[in-house]
């Protein structure tokens, strides 16, 4: 479903991604691991269409279409969901209005009529239960005054609402205690089907205990330096990122 070929991108003339290749098939879970500053979040942002980052080279095709030509909202409607590392606070915009606008845009894209108010609220209720999110949170402005854990749960809730084909979860585990981590991971697992795929971006192996990847890629200095099965995550956890540096001949 997703083919990334030799992707190079940067910000303000500084190259961050230096040629990335990843192939994701339907139903697969890929984990991208790497030390801080390796370009993990940049990759996520580029896939979601953040204009701050300029793609300088390479291709990304998504279900055969050139993803890089699509606007962020069209990528979202086509089924790409980005779980933000730092979800944005939007004072004054209620969660309900925000989600209703988003859900109806997705429906319009699929040729469906907008949901009626009562159907929409019913959907909200169902999904809230599914991801175990506090129902009070959806009465507030988007992410405003949410704790770190609440923000992350809210991302998973939105993912449940929008039912993406490809979910990219950027450091969804960072800043979560073990209970919140379990809630978030369970949410992701419940939403998993044979058709949809997930890219989990993480620094630690911890999350991968709950969301078991089919492939693990190590991103280092803007390049995928190692790809293997889930055992690579354990190896990394055990030996640390210095091991990778050593393998690359760096001290």
């Amino acid at each position, binding site marked *: 479903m997703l083919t990334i070929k030799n992707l190079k991108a940067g910000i303000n003339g500084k190259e961050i991604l230096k040629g990335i290749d990843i192939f994701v098939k339907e139903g697969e879970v890929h984990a991208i691991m790497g030390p801080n500053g390796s370009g993990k979040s940049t990759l996520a942002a580029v896939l979601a269409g953040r204009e701050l980052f300029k793609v300088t080279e390479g291709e990304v095709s998504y279900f055969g279409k050139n993803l890089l030509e699509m606007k962020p*909202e069209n990528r979202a409607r086509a089924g790409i969901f980005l779980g933000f590392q730092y979800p944005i606070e939007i004072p*004054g915009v209620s969660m309900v209005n925000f989600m209703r606008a988003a859900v109806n845009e997705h429906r319009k894209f699929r040729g469906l009529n907008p949901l009626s108010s009562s159907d929409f609220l019913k959907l909200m209720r169902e999904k809230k239960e599914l991801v175990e999110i506090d129902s009070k949170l959806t009465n507030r402005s988007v992410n405003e005054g949410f704790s770190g854990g609440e923000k992350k749960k809210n991302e998973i809730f939105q993912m449940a609402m929008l039912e993406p084909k490809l979910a990219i979860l950027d450091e969804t585990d960072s800043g979560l205690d073990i209970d919140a981590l379990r809630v978030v991971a369970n949410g992701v697992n419940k939403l998993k089907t044979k058709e949809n795929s997930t890219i989990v971006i993480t620094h630690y192996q911890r999350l991968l205990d709950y969301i078991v990847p089919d492939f693990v890629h190590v991103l280092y200095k803007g390049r995928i330096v190692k790809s293997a099965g889930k055992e690579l995550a354990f190896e990394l956890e055990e030996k640390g990122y210095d091991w990778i540096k050593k393998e690359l001949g760096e001290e």
Partner: protein
Amino acid sequence: MENIDEIKTINEELTGLFQEHVHDIRKNSPEFINAKREEAFADFKKLGLPSQNIEEYRYMDFGKLFKGNYTQLYEPQKLTVDFSSLFKCNVPELDSYIIVLVNGRYYRSDLKFKFPKGVLIGGLSQLSKEHPEIMETYYNKYAGSENNGLAALNTAFAQDGLFIYIPKNTEIEKPIQIINILVYEKDFMVHPRNFIMADDSSSAKIVVCDHTLTPWKYLTNSVTEIILGNNARLDIYNIQDENNSSAHINSVFVNQSSGSAFVSNIASIHGGTIRNNIHVTLDGERSEANIFGLYLTDRKQHIDNFTFVDHAKPNCVSSQLYKGVLDDEATGAFNGKILVRKDAQNTNAFQKNNNVLLTNEARMNTKPQLEIYADDVKCSHGATVGQINEDALFYMRSRGISEKEARLMLMYAFAFEVIGKINFAPLQERITDLVDKRLRGELSRCSNCVVNCR
């Protein structure tokens, strides 16, 4: 310099007009009002209109505004058309008392309901004659025309306007809706004079809607004096929706006694030039003033908000919030001042002005000021000029919401902080709707108005 010369000429013209028509101007007013008129005229001759050299009027070009062939009427018009059937306000069917003013004069009341005993509502000219006991004490007491050229001009020319008196211990639950209509077949100038008094422990809500019905240039120089007795409570909501070649100078002078609470919330939707001067004196302990404004401007509109909150007594609270969106070549100015006098200890004063500029041609000047002479105070102010938050925009787009819609939602959210302060649900709903339409550009014509003048 050009501005000063122009203003000089205009001052002379206005002075001449007054002298020429003084007989008609005086005709329908009681003597004590005419006495103030003479004083004010002498003041105006001395002061004239403020030039741009005066700091508080730096972004107002009165030379340009007053230049032109404005008609002024010195005698009441005979109105043959029923304006209330012709016109429906943008805030229709608000279960309210409706008062209509046409061209600055009291026209009629559409009283579906009966007012409590002792409440006086009507035209200033008539009621000041019928109830001199109130007006003799208070007329022009707080408008300070001795050092304010615009107030002096109004006091000299004013003949009529709105008069509201709410007696002690009287609570009016339903809002009183004032519909201010300007309609003429030429460029037109008017100096309405309004007087509102909420006596001790009374309370009321007033909604003022300003409209123009024909596409001529209107120039309004209004003065409103508002007096709140002890523990009185008065909310005034103002929707300014005039055509974009008109100018409205709206000067409000509020005097608050102990324990009183005042709210002013102005939504400036349309209008060529709008200048709001809100002067509030917290003249009694434990009084509270809340002053809010929202302005949505585009094309060549200019919106200029001036506030002056005078903490004259201890233990008072004031809060000001002004927010605006400036599109196209619109310009805006905010000049707000908090003064805490020497003995006004335990003051809490707060002021905020936030602006969003949508184009490189739009321009905003903001100048929040604190002048503080007491030490036991908590005062703060903030001002920002910026744009729609790009991170928020991307976040929304990444959920599939189109850029245009996301921008609108964010602008609306920005504006909502002010609308949210309207503590009267039906009105809040209607203004919400109005703002939403304005932001979507669907208000370029008065959809509710059969005249379709814009």
